[in-house]
C-alpha cells in the first residue's frame, strides 16, 4: 500500500506517494530529481548518501522515505545560497579536496554537522568525524584540509 508523505527539502515543501520500501535516498534522487546525493554501497558503510535530517547527518540509504514524514531535510543542493558556495564547498574547491567527486556531497553533509558540534576541530577529530565516509580517490588528506579551511573561514 502506498503512503502519502510530505517533507521540507532545502526549504521547499515536497510531497509524494511511496511504497514503504522506498528508501529516502531513492525518494530524493528519483522522485525529487535531486541527484547530488549519491549511492555508493549496499551496506550502510560508504556515507555517499549522507544528508541532514532535522539537523543530524544520516545515511539516507538506511531510512525509509515514510520515516521522513514531516522532516526537515538538507541535501548538497541546499548548501549554496544566492550563487555563493558554502564555506565547506569552497574549502573542497580551494584545497583540492576531491578527485572524481563521488564522495564529496556526503563528505560535505557530514562535515556540516561535525562543524556545528565542534567549530574548531583538530585534525584527529576531523578524521574521526569522517569515519563513516569513504573516499576511493584522494587519500583523505585534502579532505581534512578542506574541512579545516571551512572551520577557519567560519570562525
Amino acid at each position, binding site marked *: 500500500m502506498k503512503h502519502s508523505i510530505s517533507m521540507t527539502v532545502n526549504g521547499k515543501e515536497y510531497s509524494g506517494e511511496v511504497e*514503504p*520500501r522506498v528508501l529516502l535516498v531513492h525518494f530524493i534522487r528519483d522522485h525529487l530529481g535531486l541527484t547530488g546525493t549519491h549511492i555508493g554501497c*549496499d551496506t550502510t558503510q560508504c556515507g555517499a548518501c549522507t544528508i541532514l535530517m532535522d539537523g543530524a547527518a544520516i*545515511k539516507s540509504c*538506511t531510512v*525509509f522515505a515514510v520515516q521522513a514524514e514531516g522532516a526537515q531535510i538538507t541535501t548538497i543542493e541546499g548548501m549554496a545560497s544566492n550563487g555563493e558556495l558554502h564555506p565547506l564547498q569552497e574549502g573542497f574547491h580551494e584545497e583540492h579536496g576531491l578527485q572524481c567527486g563521488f564522495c564529496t556531497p556526503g563528505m560535505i553533509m557530514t562535515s556540516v554537522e*561535525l562543524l556545528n558540534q565542534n567549530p574548531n576541530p583538530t585534525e584527529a577529530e576531523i578524521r574521526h568525524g569522517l569515519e*563513516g565516509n569513504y573516499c576511493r580517490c584522494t587519500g583523505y588528506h585534502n579532505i581534512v584540509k578542506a574541512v579545516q579551511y571551512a572551520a577557519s573561514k567560519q570562525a
Partner: protein
Amino acid sequence: MIPYSFDYKVADSLEEAFSLLSEAGENGALLAGGHTLIPAMKLRLSEPDTVIDISKISDLNQITKDGDILVVGALTNHATVARSGDVMTYCRSLGEAAGVIGDPQVRNKGTIGGNIAHADPASDYPGVLLSLNATVVAKSDSGSRSIAIDDFFTALFETALTEGEIITEIQIPVLGEGTGSAYIKFPNPASRYAVVGVGVVITLTDGKCTACRIGITGAADHAFRASVTEEVLLGSDLSTDDIEAACQHAAEGQELLSDLAASANYRVHLCSVMVKRAINIAVERAIG
C-alpha cells in the same frame, strides 16, 4: 538494494505498539533506529510483512536520573548517550562505548534498545552494560519485568526477551566514590564493530580492589563477564603484577569466535591485553 514489500505502521504509544505487534504476529518487526533492520532488509536477509515504527514514542528517548539510578530510554540514540553530561558524570564508560559505535551517522540513528535487542556478538553496548551491572526493563501487554544484564544475553543474537516484549529502558546504577569505569575496543578495521571490546568498573577502598565487574564483547557468541579475572583482582592491591596475572584469565572458560578478523587464539590474546588496558584506565579514574 531494495527490500521486499511490507506494510508500514507507526506506533505513537507503547500500547499501540503492543496491539500492532500482536496483529502482525510472527512476521512483524519493530523499527527503532533501523540501523540493523534496514541493512538486513536491503540485503533481503530479513523480510518482515509488517514494520512497526516505534521511533516516534517520545517518552522512550530520554536520559533521567532517579536517585542512584541513571535511566536511559530504549530509543535514545548512540550520539545522545555519547554527548550526555549525566552519562559522563555518573556512568562514564557508557558514553565512551556509545561514542565508538560505528560512525557519526550510525550514532545519529542507532538506539541502545535496538542494539541490545539484536544482540550482535560484536556490538559495543553488551560489554559495557555487563560491567555496569545494568537492568533491562521490558514491557508487553501483560506487564513489565526487569531483567538483570547478567541474564539478558543468552546466545548468538539471542536474548531473554520473549515474543511481544519491548525494551523500554535500561537502568544503570550510578558509580559511587572510589569507583572508576572504562570501555575500550579493538575495532574491526573494516566494519568498526568490536573484534574485542572491554568494559571495566572497579572500586578501590584504601588502595584495595573491593568490587570489580568486567564485560567482554566481540570475543564469543555473546558478551560475557571475565569472572576469573574479577575474582583474582578482588582484595588485591592492583599492583602491575596483580593486574598482569589477573588478565591472563580474561577469556577463561569461554569458547571464542574465529573469523576473518581474528582467530580464536588471537582473540584470547586480545582479551587479556584489552582487559589490562581497560583496568588501568578505570583504576586511574577511581583514584581520580
